[in-house]
């Protein structure tokens, strides 16, 4: 399955999808040392986001989430890419800062997330300025 997407922070990424049931704020929601979800009110509490392509409906919460997301990329405990259903300025800024400071790319793209399933292989690729493609393994 190939899904057309908009690219907000460019880059290529691949990995297993982790589809979250609700938006996650990195500030207060992710432990940057372990890469785990620590927000007790979040349905995916305890999940490991490290190395995954994180799929969620949107971003949420404090603007300090930009710093925490960028710090998780720097430490290598963060996701390798983020796929959102609606754009999120806070995550976009976090990815751009990590890219500028450390040359580490964690693409942030927006597309329909229906059909993306946890545990399936997903690839994100920026094809042109502001344009991306998401390939999802159909799982056969």
């Amino acid at each position, binding site marked *: 399955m190939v899904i057309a997407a908009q690219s907000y922070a460019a880059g290529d990424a691949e990995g297993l999808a982790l589809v979250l049931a609700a938006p996650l704020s990195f500030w207060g929601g992710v432990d940057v040392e372990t890469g785990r979800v620590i927000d007790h009110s979040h349905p995916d509490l305890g999940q490991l986001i490290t190395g995954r392509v994180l799929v969620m409906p949107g971003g949420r919460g404090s603007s300090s989430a930009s710093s925490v997301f960028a710090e998780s990329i720097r430490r290598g405990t963060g996701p390798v890419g983020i796929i959102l259903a609606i*754009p999120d300025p806070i995550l976009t*800024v976090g990815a751009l800062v990590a890219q500028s400071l450390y040359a580490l790319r964690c693409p942030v793209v927006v597309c329909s997330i229906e059909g993306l399933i946890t545990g399936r292989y997903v690839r994100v690729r920026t094809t042109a300025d502001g344009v991306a493609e998401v390939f999802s393994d159909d799982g056969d």
Partner: protein
Amino acid sequence: MPLRLTPSDHALLNGEGGAAAAFAMQILTAFSRAVGAEALLDISQAHIDGCLYHGQVSLDFVERLVASGGRVRVPTTLNVGAIDLIHPELIRLSSPAQEPARRLMKAHEELGCEPSFTCAPYQTRFRPSFGDQLAWGESNAIVFANSVIGARTNRYGDFIDLCCAMTGRAPAWGLHLDAPRLGQMLFQLTGFPASLEPTDGLYVAIGLLVGSLSGDRIPVIDGLPAPPNEDLLKALGAAAASSGAVGLFHAVGITPEAATRRGAFGGRAPEATITITPADVTRALQQLSTVPDGSPVTAICLGTPHFSRNEWNRLMPLLRQVAPGRAIPIYVNTGRATLSDLEREELLTEFRGHNLVVVTDTCTYLTPILERMDGTVMTNSGKWAHYAPGNLGVQVAFGDLEDCVASAAAGHVVRGRPW
């Protein structure tokens, strides 16, 4: 509609204003696209919430701007950091642990930011005016600027507030524009006596309720007794921005964009109406305290957001009258500019016997300052009471300023009147 940049925006992006401005413009344009803005607009000042250390990335970002010769393009104030640079002996952190936090504050100064280190820039000579376009970080400052002054800023924060300062631009979106500032949701005070007094408790409770129930809609509060000064509006906004994500509220007959209820809503009907009763206020205040009345107190914490000169004028006669003695420390967070005024007038010397601990540049809920964390701390700040149990692990009792001072004297939580 795609984002349209002016020739001078393009010039900054292309490096004609230096590498630091180009870097900032690159991040600002990406942010602006993500929020769907169609253009950028000029700002007259910025307030940066980047002096608190969230990890190596906080420092690396600012050092990159310093190393590439960056300077802010508009007057820019700084929010609190993790260190009280004027009273460093108050900070209970080892020197190595203080180093990155201290450097982060200094590095911002090297970009040309004002070393204000206050969460209340509206109490300084940089206070904006009605209609000014700003890029401000720090939730209480944002809601104060929008609501009480009628200046215009979105809820900016990490990295992006500084990118606005380095370029003098912000996305033309949200609370910068007219229509998104109109009220959407009505909070009607109902069932209160005509003699209702504008107390700390009432204003904090209304703030907490409005914050937790507004979601992303602009709240309009009707029925508040007129406050004697802006400190109660500061307390209301800080509480609303702690329990929720409020960036602007209107109070009918009190705040500048709400001369009338109809005007606050721009002539439209409210999308929703919520009534607030005396019982709601009582419940909100009771939930703010984690211990019952009568519990022993180990400290009083005032000045979250930073204590204004007017609040000092309210506190000093209380200290004289109640004379709480030395047993329970009274911590007061205040801006360094406010403190230097008090010192110039030699107003604090008479209170040396009261264990008054003045804290500047930071706040007692953010960094290890309190001498004892094992007991109950009393505060008149809804924001302090909201965050401190999670941040510090202390028990909290909320009360009006008068109750806080009386409790310091008594050694346990006392109230002049029940909630």
